[in-house]
């Protein structure tokens, strides 16, 4: 009888401890992971689901709650309604067109500057800090300065060069100013990433290629570029996604441009519809999803195009690798 009893006791104690441990670890899991989990559901997952529901609902004029399920008719309207085509799709096109011009510039210019920094001329750390500096400030502050600097009447630039260009008044120059703003206040991140990438390129490869008599251009193509490929891919990806979401620069610089329709980006259009009184939430939600799909599609094409051909690699893991690779 005795041995049996001891085993039960031991088993009981063991079981008890296991249960206790499990309860304790469940408790700490709830304590540590719970807050974020709730926030993630409330402020990330739920809005996504809500967006899907909204894009398939109609709204009454004075409520933020979806009124009626209408299927895909909002999407259909966005694609077929002439006003939508004129307003939304033209702004999508402006956004893509601008991105196609600005993204290469936002790669080439910081790369060139980073290569100069990499030569380590005296004071290069100060130069690096100066070039990164404009991007850290609020867009409204730096934009306000640019607005005054390039102002038509008594602007610094017009007076300095003795010209009278209405920089923000015409569609063409207005977009030019947005581009200037994007380069001045936006290349800092790419620039720093390239600086770090160039620093890590294997120096012995340069020496070897120098001994082999490779021209500087060849050296750039076959040593430098492959050496910073992860940084390059990441910067192209983030810049492209970033400029597809272009809003602040246009909003801040171009509120007084007469032809507003011609300087509106897609996000600008969505933002305006949200701020307006029309309460067309169903359409706006649908537009957001459509624009999101376009951005996702562009970045997917870009991911495939710049990835080395390795069959069977999952897209998500490729994405994570980029994020990891400095």
């Amino acid at each position: 009888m005795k041995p049996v009893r001891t085993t039960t006791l031991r088993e009981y104690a063991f079981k008890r401890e296991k249960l206790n441990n499990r309860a304790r670890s469940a408790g700490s899991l709830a304590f540590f992971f719970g807050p974020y989990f709730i926030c993630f559901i409330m402020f990330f997952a739920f809005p996504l689901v809500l967006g899907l529901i909204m894009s398939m609902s109609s709204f009454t004029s004075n409520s933020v709650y979806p009124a009626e399920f209408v299927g895909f008719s909002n999407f259909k309207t966005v694609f077929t309604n002439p006003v939508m085509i004129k307003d939304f799709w033209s702004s999508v096109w402006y956004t893509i067109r601008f991105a196609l011009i600005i993204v290469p510039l936002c790669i080439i210019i910081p790369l060139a500057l980073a290569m100069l920094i990499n030569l380590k001329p005296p004071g290069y750390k100060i130069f690096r800090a100066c070039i990164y500096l404009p991007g850290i400030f609020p867009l409204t502050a730096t934009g306000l300065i640019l607005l005054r600097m390039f102002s038509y009447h008594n602007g610094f630039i017009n007076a300095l060069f003795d010209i009278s260009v209405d920089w923000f008044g015409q569609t063409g120059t207005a977009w030019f100013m947005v581009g200037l703003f994007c380069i001045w206040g936006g290349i800092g991140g790419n620039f720093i990433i390239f600086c770090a990438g160039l620093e890590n390129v294997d120096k012995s490869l340069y020496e070897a290629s120098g001994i082999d008599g490779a021209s500087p251009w060849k050296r750039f193509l076959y040593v430098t570029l492959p050496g910073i490929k992860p940084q390059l891919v990441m910067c192209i990806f983030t810049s492209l996604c970033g400029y597809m979401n272009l809003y602040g620069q246009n909003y801040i610089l171009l509120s007084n441009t007469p032809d507003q329709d011609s300087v509106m980006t897609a996000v600008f259009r969505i933002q305006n519809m949200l701020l307006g009184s029309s309460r067309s939430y169903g359409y706006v939600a649908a537009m957001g999803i459509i624009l999101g799909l376009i951005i996702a599609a562009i970045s997917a094409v870009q991911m495939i195009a710049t990835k080395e051909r390795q069959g069977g690699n999952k897209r998500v893991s490729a994405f994570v690798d980029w994020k990891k690779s400095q």
Partner: protein
Amino acid sequence: MFRRSWIGKNLSKIIAFVILLCVSLIFLLPLVYGVLGSVRTYTDLSGRPESLFPTSPAAFTWDGYKELFSKTKFVESHANEYFPIWNWLLNSLVVSLGGTLVYLLIASFAAYAFVFLDFKYSDKIFGLLIATMVIPGIVSTTPQLINMNMLGLYKSLLGLIVPSFGGVYGVYLIRQFFISIPKDLVENARMDGASNIGIFFKVVLPLGKSALFVQGLFGFMAAWNDVQWAQLIIGAAPRTTWTLAYGLKVISDNSEATESMTLAFASAVIAMIPIFIVYLVAQSKIIEGVANTGIKR
């Protein structure tokens, strides 16, 4: 001989120096123009627009700042020139500092759970979180606004803060740092009978604080600079609920008509100072953070 060879050897460095000097000056020019413009009279700014500096001692003035801090009371006849700047500063501080600190706590708790509390499906859940990072933010802008409306946070500062709490990137970044902490340290502490909360605050947090610092810096700057979400949430709220970055837009729009350029420049400088201080103090950390993690703004 010696001289020529020195130049020859360093030619590329000299060229790089000259180009970088020019580029740096061009990049600094608007900032210098703005800062100096904030201490120039309107007559000087408009009369000698080609000058970067105050053209005479008489053209130097602190009036821009004085005026900015005197328009903090609502006057019916000058409703457009009502700039409660102390409220804006305080609101910006609450949103950026408060929001960032709370998110850091939530996110580092979650990161701790992922790394040190091997729970069931933790890898799968983390993979799912990472996968959501490819969803462009614009998809959830509209529903997030409605969500805030439903929660009663529309037109309130909390509506500016809480959406960032669901952010994935901070959790990801902090987790990457926590992974590099030797597991033995945590196991030893656990053997000694330390609770998870104790381990988190006494072992993990001190070792991973640089990750939190980097995430905090960028969170702070992003919140301080935000205009787009602020416009949606607090744009229709009374001016006392605005943030500084958003208020600047109104000052800017207002400045041309009212010839208050000095005041506008002064407000821009006020908005830039806190960020500049952060940059001065943590410059190397910020540059390191961009270089190592790819956060940009």
